[in-house]
């Protein structure tokens, strides 16, 4: 593929720009643009809120168990000493993640140019990994590191020196590379090709140094023996980093990728016993990616009811790599389909589906299922659509055209999810819970109230974790269960009556917003999908009391 200018006729040198390069650039631009937006647009929320709070505490010398000393978390603490906003750590994560297109580009030799491009495109529009790659969580380097780990694992003839670097990086990163490392170990054992003794020893030593450095908190204090990826992996099963469960987040943003990944994994497993058709390195990358996806999927499935979406990213990242080659083949096959009846059949099926969807969208608008006649119509149309799809799938010559509706639906879900997460509406259910802007306003107001007095700012113990970030750089807080006499401003859970000598500060105050997620129902999902601004925001209310008379 190339574009050539016609300038040769005029006697000038011909400039040839390969089309593939242009496409690589375009996809990379999409990838970077979506991520760059996160830096400024997305509110602090989810695990980022937790880890920024931890990093802030570390940066001011306060012990805080939310500080899990990954390399990125340590950098975050240092950057917060320079500037107290989340922008710098996010920029650092963005810069690291910006190297991912290069990593995928280097992988094209193993997975093919088209598959590489498609993988990059899928990664670009995968909302969970998009957010994880830029947000200032402890796992800020995870997405980039995982991609580079994959490159080093599958590149033939690699020198030994990257291994210790990777060993150190993996044990000081978050949980996402751990899943790939596990899959790589699995494959190495399965293939009987372990790392030679010397690189293995050096890598193990580097990993031990990493554990030691992490245990020392990268200079922020002894944390006990700590392996950050293990610690963070375990925390994903206990933590409340998302308002909804991991399966709920997947239902909103990633189900097409997970389903496609599962289908691709089944296809890969079916040819597992066959002799390799491709060069060994290609063979390796496909199998490794399959093992990686299965490990990620398993950790996601086990933790799907937990409130953390990190395991979801651990499944969607490899999904992109195993779906891409099969997607490329499916698209090729679709273009090669010359059977007019197949296309006609597809057209009819899509028309029927569209008719059904029109009714469903109408129901969604009013948030209720319509009358019996409409239900019957939707059922009949749905059944006819399903029968049509089954018929197309049954006939080998028409099977490929099914790629069209599959890609259309998947693109709709993934692209809209990616754009909404990237451009950070405060109504988007991911990330949630969020630290509201109002919390920082409240911090300013509290400071204003206390300016002229020696009184203290008291925060109820149950709100301790929520104030660390928005109240940074204010004043020394008193965290208490009962309001002391010298309190100038007191922030307590809603429903508390004012202590003697204090009056409520007018306003609806909140330190935490939960963006409610649509329930697991088609109507609710369509309603949310067609109008995301209808999401309910659950503002966790607090009372603010200030010293003064009634």
């Amino acid at each position, binding site marked *: 593929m190339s574009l050539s200018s016609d300038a040769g006729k005029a006697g000038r040198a011909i400039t040839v720009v390969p089309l593939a390069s242009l496409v690589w650039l375009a996809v990379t631009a999409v990838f970077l643009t979506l991520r760059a937006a996160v830096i400024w647009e997305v509110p602090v929320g989810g695990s980022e809120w937790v880890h920024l709070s931890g990093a802030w505490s570390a940066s001011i010398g306060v012990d805080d168990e939310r500080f899990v000393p990954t390399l990125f978390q340590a950098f975050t603490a240092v950057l917060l000493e320079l500037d107290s906003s989340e922008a710098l750590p996010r920029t650092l994560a963005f810069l690291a993640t910006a190297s991912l297109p290069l990593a995928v580009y280097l992988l094209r030799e193993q997975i093919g140019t088209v598959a590489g491009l498609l993988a990059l495109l899928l990664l670009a529009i995968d909302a969970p990994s998009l957010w994880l790659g830029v947000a200032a969580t402890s796992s800020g380097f995870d997405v980039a590191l995982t991609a580079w780990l994959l490159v080093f694992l599958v590149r033939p003839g690699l020198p030994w020196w990257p291994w210790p670097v990777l060993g150190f990086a993996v044990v000081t990163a978050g949980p996402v590379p751990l899943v790939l490392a596990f899959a790589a170990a699995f494959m190495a054992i399965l293939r009987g090709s372990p790392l030679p003794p010397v690189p293995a020893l050096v890598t193990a030593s580097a990993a031990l140094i990493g554990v030691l450095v992490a245990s020392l908190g990268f200079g922020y204090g002894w944390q006990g023996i700590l392996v950050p990826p293990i610690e963070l992996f375990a925390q994903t099963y206990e933590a409340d980093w998302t308002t909804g469960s991991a399966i709920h987040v997947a239902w909103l943003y990633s189900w097409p990728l997970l389903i496609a990944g599962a289908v691709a994994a089944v296809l890969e497993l079916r040819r597992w016993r066959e002799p390799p058709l491709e060069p060994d390195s290609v063979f390796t990358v496909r199998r490794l990616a399959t093992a990686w996806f299965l490990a990620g999927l398993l950790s996601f499935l086990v933790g799907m009811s937990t409130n953390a979406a990190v395991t979801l990213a651990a499944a969607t990242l490899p999904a992109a790599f195993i779906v891409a080659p099969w997607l490329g083949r499916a698209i090729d096959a679709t273009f090669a389909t010359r059977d007019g009846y197949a296309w006609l059949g597809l057209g009819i099926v899509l028309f029927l589906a569209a008719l059904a969807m029109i009714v469903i969208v109408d129901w969604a608008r009013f948030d209720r299922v319509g009358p019996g006649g409409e239900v019957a119509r939707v059922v009949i149309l749905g059944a006819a659509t399903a029968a049509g799809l089954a018929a197309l799938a049954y006939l080998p010559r028409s099977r490929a055209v099914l790629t069209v509706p599959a890609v259309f639906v998947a693109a709709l879900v993934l692209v809209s999810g990616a754009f909404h997460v990237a451009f950070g509406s405060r109504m988007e259910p991911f990330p949630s819970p969020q630290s509201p802007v109002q919390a920082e306003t409240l911090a300013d107001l509290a400071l204003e109230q206390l300016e002229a007095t020696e009184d203290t700012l008291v925060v109820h113990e149950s709100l301790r974790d929520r104030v660390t970030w928005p109240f940074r750089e204010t004043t020394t807080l008193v965290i*208490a269960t009962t309001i002391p006499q010298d309190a100038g401003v007191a922030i307590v859970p809603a429903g508390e009556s004012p202590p003697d000598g204090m009056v409520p500060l007018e306003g609806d105050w909140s330190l935490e917003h939960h963006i409610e997620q649509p329930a697991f129902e088609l109507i609710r999902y369509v309603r949310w999908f067609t109008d995301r601004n209808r999401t309910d925001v659950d503002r966790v209310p607090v009372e603010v009391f200030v010293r003064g008379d009634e």
Partner: protein
Amino acid sequence: MAPLLAFWCAALLLAGFAFPIAQRLFRRFPDAGAGLAFPLGLMLCGYGYFVLRSVGILPQGQGGFLLAFALFGLVGLLVARTDPRFAGTARRSSAGIAASAGVFTAAFFGYATFRSYQSAIGGTEQPMDLLFLNAMLESPSYPPEDPWLAGSSVSYYYFGYLQSALLSGVSGTEASAGYNLGLAAVFASTATAAASVCAALARWVLGHGQHAVVAAGALGVALVLFAGSLIGVFEFTAAHERYSEPVYSAFGVESLLPCDQVDADDCYAGQTSPRTQSWYPDEYWYWWRASRIIPDTITEFPAFSFLLGDLHPHVMALPGVLLATALALALWRGQGPLGFHTLRRKPLLGLMLALVFGGLAFQNTWDVLTFSALLGVAVTARNARAGPFPGAALDAVRFLASAAIAAVVLYAPWWTTFASQAGGLYAYAGAGTQPNHAFLQFGALALAAALVIPWAIARSRSTGPLSALVYAPWLPLVPLLAWAVFAAVRGDWSDAVTERGAGGWATLAILAAFIWALTATALVLHQRRSPGAPMAALGAFGLLLLYGAELFFIRDVFFGSIPRLNTVFKLSYQAWVLLAVAGAVALVAAAAEGFRRQRSLVIAAAPVSLLVLLSFAYVIGAVPNRADGFAGDSNIDGLAQLARNNPDEYALTRWIANNTRPGETIIEATGRQWTAGEDGPQLQDGGVSYTDAGRVSSRTGRPTPIGWDAHQVQWRGDTEDNRAEFTRRQDAVDAIYLAEDPAEALAQIDAFDAEYVVLGSLERERYPEAHRIDFDAFLEPVFESGETRVYRVPVSDEVPTS
């Protein structure tokens, strides 16, 4: 249903991971060790988790369990990939592997279904078991903290709880359901292990007759898990009012007769006609009596344990015990002498021996001595096949000592926190067991195991080397002489001789005769290189344990009252397993040989078979009795009944579990009963064991200053210091509820570094309202349900923000 399936999947996966290791150890078994992969997987993965948590690498929670699980999967894969014979062995044994998975599945779901009709965790020592299970799941550090003694590590053999916790943790099951599913997994693992061992022995003894191998496996499962005391027959007849005073008296069960038909203090005083409303005895917990047949002892057996549903170490150790037996048998059967050189050549074997036998000590310390001795016999027997005895024994000692040292080192984190309460070996100076009671309890299994004698005779025209008959008597005689010496040295000689009545001596004589005969048979078979030797040896070993418990006891906290209670309990439990395995194979071997060649063997086997059949009467009646006729609600969650009957207490449990962090100390009632008095509260009843004391801690794993104090004495030793400390803690906790002013209460709360105070129905019942302090005045109420409250202890921290 979801926890049930998740737990089952986790158990099957774990066994799959362990199978490559199991098949290297048990390649000669018909199932290539698949049936033993369940206990082996739990032991090895549990060990990995324990070590990685103890050094601080794995964190608390489901993620930690999952990582240990995944790492163990890699180890299993590595072993499979480095074993060139793995694929071939697995292919050859595919039927056995499938059978093991099937047996596990059937047993797991079958037992879980039974248990779901009686799933409540309460009564007996079940709160203690739930406590330990929760401690394994919730402890913020390892070795785990004792939730009934805040600030201290558990001092108990808790490996079984850790293994149950592993499956709960991996499958994401709550402890209250994990408790019952853990029991189901133990039951199912015992079934697969028993089937595996019995099938292997049967194949060695009988050759490759598929039907006999399957029959031995099935009968092994039945005898280990479903056989019971023969009192079950009398329970049936008595329930249906078939009385015969002479027969009942002859078997020493006159206590089942109605009081108006027998002249005895201990008699049946319940409803007489009809005595049961059903086809089975419906008297409440009638099956309990089978575990108390021999006075002042406990004669528990597996069927009873699984009916009762206590998740006790000796129950959870059953699969491990069978695994250890299988290892001993596999080594016995193997070729070539075993010495120190073997461990250098086969390090995996040494490592597995250390992990399994060290794990056995960690799981139920009583078992390690017995089964190490069995291992010693097996190794010595194997070495003696290859060379002269002194050298063979020396090699065996080197081999076993190396493995023992490795076992101690590998489990060092546990040994350092464990305080054994064994206070030395004593000669027993009591009446001993009456022969009729011994027959009721062990007759069926012992006679089944003894069938190896006629089988061995029938297989040979000659009686074998007479030297065996000369050596064998020493086995019963040496312990008897040792008993006499011990009794004389301790000054109990006179009592020891006079106290034991004719019945006691008769039991000893009968046991000695059987041991002599079985040992002689084992020696003869060994000298003939017959694979039947281990079968006879297992029977002899089982009877030797019963014999030993008639002569000696290990001193423990019951020394002053019922001294041999634990010794009889634990040794007879081990004997049951050994006799069941030996009996199952011997019965099948005798029957097979009888039908094939020697009709006289059928005559010997027939009455024994009848006795074995009668031994199942116990389970047949007890199962519907325990499950209340399967008429009630079915729920695998052990706290479902609490949720139904006491929703406030249940809500309290859930709130504490969901809103407090592991390691945060909770103040709750000590369980001591106080009454109002004019001069202040009066202590009315200080007994707290087997009550609801420490119930929040037990149900959530959150530490409390003191739980069942008498059990702490059992675990940590009956010393003045210990008793003083436990009483001090009880006084301090009671002082919190009965304090006269908040400062006094807060001082005690601070001393325990406690975060929450519970005021529930138990606290209201145990501390009189007139003297109870008003927590509302100085603590923050954070939970309320009915009259149940939880208070947060005041906090005031200064936190800089820049």
